[in-house]
């Protein structure tokens, strides 16, 4: 099967200092693909190249069987012929047109009535129907974002590119729009490339995910697999693994699918998932602060294999999440709720036990 979108792209931005190079190859199936990656990774550049707004230095981009760009064959379909809907990070609503006119802009072929009906319908479903006669300068940031989405979706594209389309929306609206988008695409089965920084959005939308860093793809796959087993340190940090630990492999227990490792500079040992590693090899582990349990008495009879005694070194209660630093020889950051702090009567200096599930330990390559 030919991929719904296949792109091989090399594109260099020449800046006054150094150069940024996007260099990757992706094949996309219909449905959502999340593009994830730190700021400046090249996500918008990738979308610009696919949409035809930036011209790659080399490569080939094809939608189904149609070639959109091919540096070797000197093919370069102009943006307006690509039938790709693109919601820019900067939105780029037309300042002189009303919300209604903006939304109907991509529907020049229709009769006035039909256009109105389709525009009204989509504005309604995005909750901005009553703004239809306002100009973009007279609506709020989140409203602008919804209008930009509506303007793109109302056309009949063969591909949808969304550059952080929900960043200015509250949780509720987001959830609603996700559902709308899913329903919209259920019949269409378009490939949708969606850039986001938000874990929520990844969770809600992700069927497939590619992770960019420094212009290259550093991970690709199901969101939970990609995010749970980050392969790179920069990504691990970006995805919120607060605890990064150096360790040495002790022994492998292949039948259990686990291995034991010793943390560096202390006597702590952990049971972690099996990996392609040899005893004595140095590895790096990542553990999310929210995945660590904290107990005031030594817990027993648990399925969790890693129980580490330690002492509370610091307690930061300023936010809705309490950040506890526990010293077990190495320092761990643990996130717990204020209720737990109260109930357990936690205080600095108090001895505690940390419980870490085997599968909460992830490997990081750097």
């Amino acid at each position, binding site marked *: 099967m030919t991929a719904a979108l296949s792109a091989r792209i090399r594109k260099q931005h020449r800046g006054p200092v150094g150069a940024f190079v996007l260099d990757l190859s992706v094949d996309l199936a219909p449905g959502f693909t999340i593009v994830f990656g730190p700021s400046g990774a090249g996500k918008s550049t990738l979308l610009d190249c696919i949409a035809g707004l930036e011209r790659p230095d080399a490569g080939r981009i094809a939608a189904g069987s149609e070639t959109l760009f091919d540096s070797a064959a000197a093919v370069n379909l*102009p943006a*307006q012929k690509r039938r790709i*809907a*693109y919601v820019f990070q900067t939105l780029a609503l*037309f300042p002189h047109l009303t919300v209604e006119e903006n939304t109907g802009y*991509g529907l020049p072929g229709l009769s006035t009535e039909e256009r109105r009906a389709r525009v009204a319908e989509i504005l309604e479903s995005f909750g901005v129907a009553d703004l239809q006669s306002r100009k973009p300068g007279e609506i709020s940031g989140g409203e602008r974002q919804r209008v930009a989405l509506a303007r*793109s979706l109302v056309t009949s594209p063969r591909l949808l590119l969304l550059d952080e389309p929900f960043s200015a929306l509250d949780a509720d609206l987001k959830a609603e729009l996700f559902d709308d988008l899913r329903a919209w695409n259920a019949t269409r089965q378009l490939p949708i490339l969606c850039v986001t920084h938000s874990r929520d959005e990844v969770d809600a939308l992700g069927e497939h995910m590619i992770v960019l860093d420094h212009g290259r793809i550093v991970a690709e796959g199901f969101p939970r697999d990609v995010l749970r087993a980050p392969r790179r340190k920069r990504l691990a940090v970006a995805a919120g693994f607060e605890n990064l630990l150096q360790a040495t492999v002790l022994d492998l227990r292949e039948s259990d699918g686990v291995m034991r490792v010793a943390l560096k500079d202390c006597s702590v040992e952990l049971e972690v998932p099996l990996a392609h590693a040899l005893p004595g090899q140095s590895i790096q582990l990542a553990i999310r602060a929210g995945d660590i349990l904290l107990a005031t008495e030594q817990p027993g009879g648990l399925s969790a294999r890693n129980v580490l005694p330690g002492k509370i070194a610091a307690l930061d209660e300023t936010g809705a999440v309490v950040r506890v630093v526990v010293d077990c020889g190495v320092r761990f950051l643990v996130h717990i709720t204020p209720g737990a702090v109260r109930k357990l009567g936690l205080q600095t200096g108090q001895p505690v036990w940390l419980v870490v599930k085997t599968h909460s330990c992830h490997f990081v390559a750097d």
Partner: protein
Amino acid sequence: MNLAPLFLSLRLAAIVSLLLVAVSLPLAAWLAFGRWRGRFLLEAVFALPLVLPPTVLGFYLLLALGPRSPLGALWQALFGHGLAFSFEGLVFASLLYSLPFAVQPLVSAFRGVDPKLLSASFVLGASPLRTFRRVVLPLSYSGLVTALVLSFAHTLGEFGVVLMVGGNLPGVTRTVSIAIYDSVQAFDYGEANRLALTLLGISFAALSVIYAVNRRVWSPWSSR
């Protein structure tokens, strides 16, 4: 006071400024967005009619429009009368002379349009032409007004070129600026003042309306 020259002038200025804008729109669009890297040279060429004294430009035009030039001969063959000393000739000459006033403001307005909006239009499937009509042009409204006003006023006031090419024929090529000039030269200051005041009054009214409308119109940018 003989008002015929005034009406003639208004007709000339209206025709010229409208034609001028029509001609300048594609020209300015090409100068602003075109691909050819040397187009700034043409931009300079279009401003050149301005630097010649009008009468002299008129003289050269007279040669170019005369029966001995290919253009003049062709015109004569097609329409049975020469371009010189005709209203059409005036229109042609004024077009050429006032061109920079229409082209320049348009080019600079077009260049000011946020390219991101052009991208947005393309991505929505609009052709360059549609993009020009629906995005570039309305966002250049103020430049368009400047182009219209300058070319209208300049055509009203122009007299060197018009006199030379038109031959000052009453009812045909005697514009109000020539009429005022003639009155001044004949020391008929009364008539000159009356004509000048009428012209100024009408122009002031027209310009005020244009500017007032221009002011009302949406500002291209958000008010916030």
